[in-house]
């Protein structure tokens, strides 16, 4: 319960004062979603369009000042998709090409490219958003975008308590290890499973206590709006220029 070690949520945001940091969260959120949609609907063989998108996405990363190393480290989340993608050319049928003696499906190679480029660009945009926007701000942005408040509250509670939960799990694990538990094999999973059960019960109890704490401060079923500052039209226009340019690229190139 004490200490600030090992927080998962807070480290995602990188404090800074770049142009991208200063944009209001709701505009960033909408722009990222719009840009990702444009990328997703772009036909996979439009290599020029993807090249231009990449220039756009990387320029955002550069402007945000989060650094190439951090960017690449975070980009690693797409590695599982890459692993999946590289299998495809070996398994797909149809027309094939010979690459150093191995027969690869042309269709499969395009599929791999499609997954790689879209996952990469999508992740890049998400990294730019999450690294420059504090989580609390992002939630405010969602409220201002009229995302149902109950939904925002559920996400907020999840983010607020995930670290508490992880700590609790860590304490339970330590207490098991302290008593000689050394899980290595699947058949040793029983204590883990029962601790997951205990964690569930504890979380449920915490939920009840939090609800009481909310009632005690006048909660009546609706989360109050604490921050109601809205983004200006100018801000909207300048941010939405990005996905708009992407859309223009799509229309011109295709």
């Amino acid at each position, binding site marked *: 319960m004490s200490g600030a070690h090992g927080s998962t949520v807070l480290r995602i945001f990188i404090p800074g004062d770049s142009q991208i940091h200063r944009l209001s969260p709701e505009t960033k959120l909408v722009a990222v979603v719009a840009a990702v949609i444009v990328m997703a609907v772009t036909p996979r063989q439009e290599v020029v369009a993807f090249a231009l998108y990449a220039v756009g996405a990387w320029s955002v990363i550069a402007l945000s000042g989060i650094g190439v190393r951090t960017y690449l480290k975070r980009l690693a989340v797409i590695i599982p998709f890459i692993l999946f993608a590289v299998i495809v050319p070996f398994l797909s049928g149809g027309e094939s090409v010979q690459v150093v003696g191995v027969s690869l499906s042309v269709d499969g190679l395009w599929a791999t490219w499609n997954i790689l480029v879209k996952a990469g660009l999508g992740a890049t945009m998400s990294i730019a958003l999450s690294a420059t926007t504090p989580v609390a701000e992002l939630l405010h942005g969602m409220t201002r975008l009229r995302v149902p408040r109950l939904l925002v509250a559920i996400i907020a509670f999840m983010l607020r308590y995930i670290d508490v939960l992880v700590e609790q799990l860590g304490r339970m694990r330590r207490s098991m290890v302290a008593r000689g538990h050394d899980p290595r094999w699947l058949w040793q999973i029983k204590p883990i499973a029962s601790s997951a059960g205990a964690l569930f019960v504890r979380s449920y109890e915490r939920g009840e206590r939090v609800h009481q*704490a909310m009632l*005690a401060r006048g909660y009546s079923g609706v989360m109050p709006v604490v921050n109601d500052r809205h983004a200006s039209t100018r801000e909207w226009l300048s941010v939405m220029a990005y996905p708009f340019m992407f859309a223009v690229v799509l229309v011109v190139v295709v």
Partner: protein
Amino acid sequence: MPASSVVVRDLRFRYPGEHHDALHGLSIEVAEGERVAVLGPNGSGKTTFVMHLNGLLAMQSGEIRIGDLPVVEDNLREVRRVVGAVFQDADDQLFMSTVREDVAFGPANLGISGSELDELVERTLKRVGADGYADRNPHHLSGGEKRRVAIATVLSMDPHVLILDEPTSGLDPAGRRELIDLLSGLAQTQLIVTHDLPLALQLCARSVIVSGGKVVADAPTVELLSDVELLAQHRLELPMGFDPSRL
């Protein structure tokens, strides 16, 4: 800063499915601005009792009044404004993503918004010595900071009565002293549920012992803590070497 009296008469309560009353005809009167320590062993009904004061547990039998305000279903909104409850685990009390939102939660529920709300939050944080914490994540505060911010979350509603459940548990000695300084500077009527007997002595001129669901002793704290036999009967013990009469 207004304070209210608290009057509780013959409070009885049984948790659903239990065979024994958790509260067994508990009565107490607390004057405006008075600080009273509520002592007693684990499971004696202390927490059950204080949860009634702002209507978190629905009364089954008895009567509670906060000033002129009876604690009944129809008044709950007002009752919860005038009675601020600070829970034992600050992680339950601080449930929003930032300290600012947590301190603003109560007043926002009361309809305060905009710059008035912002100023209120700043002012309240300053009062508990936590100015500059507004944008921090509650999870990243130390135990003592969490406790002070938890108190700020109810002070921002301008309560007349404060209920504190084990306010010093888990605090380091300096954090404990800072908390005592803070509480002794507040004008509200305070009911402090605690096992920390020196704290009771330091903060409260009067203490009650709750045992078996009712008040079994009600006296000046010095007197109460000097009665070793009485304390022992209710599983209470002073720290070794602590002599209340020498303070």
